[in-house]
């Protein structure tokens, strides 16, 4: 069994409540940090842990925290990104639903490190029932002196709020999130300035994913060095993976970074193998926006080494033969899956979710969807395959925020690795009902 740092007590009855959570050692990190550590020492531990952002980009969290402008006179904010809307990713939901106090605890310890007096959890509108769970947990934390004025009798005070969005993937992009939190239209901002300098209400702000903030709890409890012993190289600690698709045991798993991909898919501890005794065809390893990989490339890198569940190993080979760990949305497709169909679904999503601010993404995502729709319906043309690649290329790297890339990469990689399937779709002429009836009469 791999080490469980986040989900250790998830099956404890009543762990949602303050009482049980506290009995299981909850809020120890708050006590330790507030009573025996300076804020910068907490940041230092996070730096030593090697923790990297779990929201998708994998940016070192400790480094992000040190970028926060501490010389500014303005208030500082910590904002938790709980917008989780990437197709294939549902780990934050699981964590917040079952361990709300773990997130609240992480928010308090992290806010202390950053010197934030007010912090926010921005959660996607569709998670309304979780808003209630979190609000109850926050209420309990206030009642027990872990939030509000003079926490645990120290001179540190913190207010924590949950703010639901209105259901937009783009509000997961950190600057769009801040706009939305300010009550504006959720359009991503142009960077620089980065949130660390001018974020929420133009004040220094750190935005971190739910899981990132939760991971601060075990890091403070066991120490950064101990945390860093788990994992391989620059991929330290444990990671939640939401596994879905054609596997025997879909679900959310906490893995030690560094286990082989093959083990993750086939061991009974995790996915339990491909369902219905079918063969594996492809994997989207980190949520819908990362490049898709065919079965042969997902188990071994181009160099012939076994591929591991780490940031580096999954990315090995760049976009030619690699992919990304992303947000840990692990989607498995068996031999019956249609890549064209899958790509169409993804493209429809990005078209629907583009904020429409910048021209390449606004216009390009819709175009991609239309071409894929036509291919899927059997009205495609031979030229469509190259057109897809060309449109994706014209979006990539030309947009304000990375949603442009998120829409382009799946297209580029799917066509690269499964070109034949697209060409076949283009060659397949689908007859309409009328045409079929006509043929039948001959």
């Amino acid at each position, binding site marked *: 069994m791999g080490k469980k740092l986040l989900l250790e007590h998830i099956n404890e009855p009543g762990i949602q409540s303050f009482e049980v959570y506290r009995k299981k050692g909850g809020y120890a990190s708050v006590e330790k940090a507030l009573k025996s550590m300076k804020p910068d020492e907490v940041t230092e531990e996070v730096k030593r842990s090697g923790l990297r952002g779990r929201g998708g980009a994998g940016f070192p969290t400790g480094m992000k925290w040190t970028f926060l402008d501490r010389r500014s006179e303005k208030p500082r904010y910590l904002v938790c990104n709980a917008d989780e809307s990437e197709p294939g990713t549902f780990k934050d939901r699981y964590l917040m639903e079952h361990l709300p106090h773990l997130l609240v605890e992480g928010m308090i310890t992290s806010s202390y490190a950053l010197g934030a007096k007010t912090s926010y959890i921005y959660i996607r509108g569709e998670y309304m029932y979780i808003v209630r769970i979190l609000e109850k947990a926050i209420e309990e934390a206030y009642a027990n002196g872990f939030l509000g004025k003079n926490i645990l009798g120290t001179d540190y005070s913190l207010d924590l709020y949950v703010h639901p969005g209105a259901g937009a993937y*783009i509000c997961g992009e950190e600057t769009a999130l801040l706009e939305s939190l300010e009550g504006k239209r959720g359009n991503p901002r142009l960077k620089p300035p980065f949130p660390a300098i001018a974020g929420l209400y133009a004040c220094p702000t750190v935005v971190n994913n739910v899981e990132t903030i939760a991971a601060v709890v075990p890091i403070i409890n066991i120490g950064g060095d101990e945390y860093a012993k788990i994992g391989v190289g620059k991929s330290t600690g444990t990671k939640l993976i939401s596994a879905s698709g054609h596997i025997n045991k879909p679900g959310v798993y906490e893995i030690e970074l560094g286990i082989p991909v093959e083990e993750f898919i086939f061991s009974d501890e995790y996915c339990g193998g491909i369902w219905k005794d079918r063969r594996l065809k492809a994997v989207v390893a980190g949520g819908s926006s990362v490049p898709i990989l065919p079965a042969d490339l997902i188990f071994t890198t181009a160099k012939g080494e076994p591929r591991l569940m780490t940031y580096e190993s999954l990315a090995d080979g760049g976009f030619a033969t690699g992919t990304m760990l992303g947000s840990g949305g692990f989607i498995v497709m068996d031999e019956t899956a249609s890549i064209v169909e899958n790509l169409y679904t993804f493209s429809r999503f990005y*078209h*629907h979710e583009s904020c*429409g601010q910048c*021209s390449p993404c606004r216009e390009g995502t819709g175009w991609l969807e239309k071409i894929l729709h036509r291919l899927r319906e059997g009205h495609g043309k031979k030229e469509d395959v190259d057109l897809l690649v060309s449109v994706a290329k014209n979006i990539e790297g030309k947009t304000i925020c990375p949603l442009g890339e998120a829409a382009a990469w799946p297209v580029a990689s799917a066509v690269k690795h499964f070109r034949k399937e697209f060409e076949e779709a283009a060659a397949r002429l689908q007859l309409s009902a009328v045409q079929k009836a006509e043929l039948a009469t001959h």
Partner: protein
Amino acid sequence: MAKVTIDGITVEVPDGTTILNAARQIGGEIVPPAMCYYTSLKDSGGKCRVCLVKVTQGSAKDPRPMPKLVASCRTTVADGMVIENISSPEVLEARKGVVEFLLINHPLDCPICDQAGECDLQDLSYEHGLADTRYEFERRTFEKIDIGDKIKLHMTRCILCYRCVLVANQLTEQRVHGVLDRGDRAEISTYIEKAVDNDFSGNMIDVCPVGALTDRTFRFKSRVWFTKPMDAHRNCTKCCGKVVLWTKGNDVLRVTARKDRYGEVSEFICNECRYEHKNLADWVVEGPRHINRHSVISQNHYEKIDLLKLKKEVERQLVFQKGKQLPPANQSTTYSTENGNSQTQTHA
């Protein structure tokens, strides 16, 4: 001060200047086009992406190149920065892609659009666009709406530059219009078609780079190239009172603010000057306005045109407007001559 090099030409500009404005100091061909940036509107730019350039050296201190193309209108210079615009095939390729994106859902209804002749998108597409479209799907359309009695919103033509929203935010007391919905369904609109009615709302029309917001008091009165632009002023208590009168004979067909060579207004005018003084006697006329702004249908080039060909093109486009198949035509020869200069209707 910062020394920057754009397409091999070096210029010294104050710190904090954007790459676009540094290029404008040099002038000429190396100035990137701009569809959403507007000097006098705070926070404008960054959206259309036609001004993308390549930074091959970040600064003298940190010579690393920037990993992606950057929006020149929103990227500030650093001392020793080296930038490629028209000397970079990558930039030109990217720009072509962006222009294509701007056009795939555009109605291309120039022959019946009031903005034709002073339209940034029209100019941009002639210079950077493809002759053919690769887009074979139905184009997105919206209903035309009147926002108030002075402004017509033709959303189908809009490129979502957000300039009019910024005008309303920054020049008027209260913004009652904005962007609704998202992605390619996003539209400029007012909540339940509320009238936009305040002293400076007319400037929304001037900042619109395309024909999405047009002056209802001028609509279909004349093609702009048949009108004579005259600089004029009057004593106005609300604004600078400095305008351009677009005249035909002794009639003032339209009043606008004065635009510079990049199509930008620096002194906005009030609605009284714009709409309520369409009488030559109300104005002190300074003389003909020299339009040195680049345009494919420039008011300065009263050159010969094949009338028959123009008529045919208009007919062809009108057929297309009705949703019929576009008959083949040599579209690009209608408006532009070989040397890239534009030609228009002779003044009658």
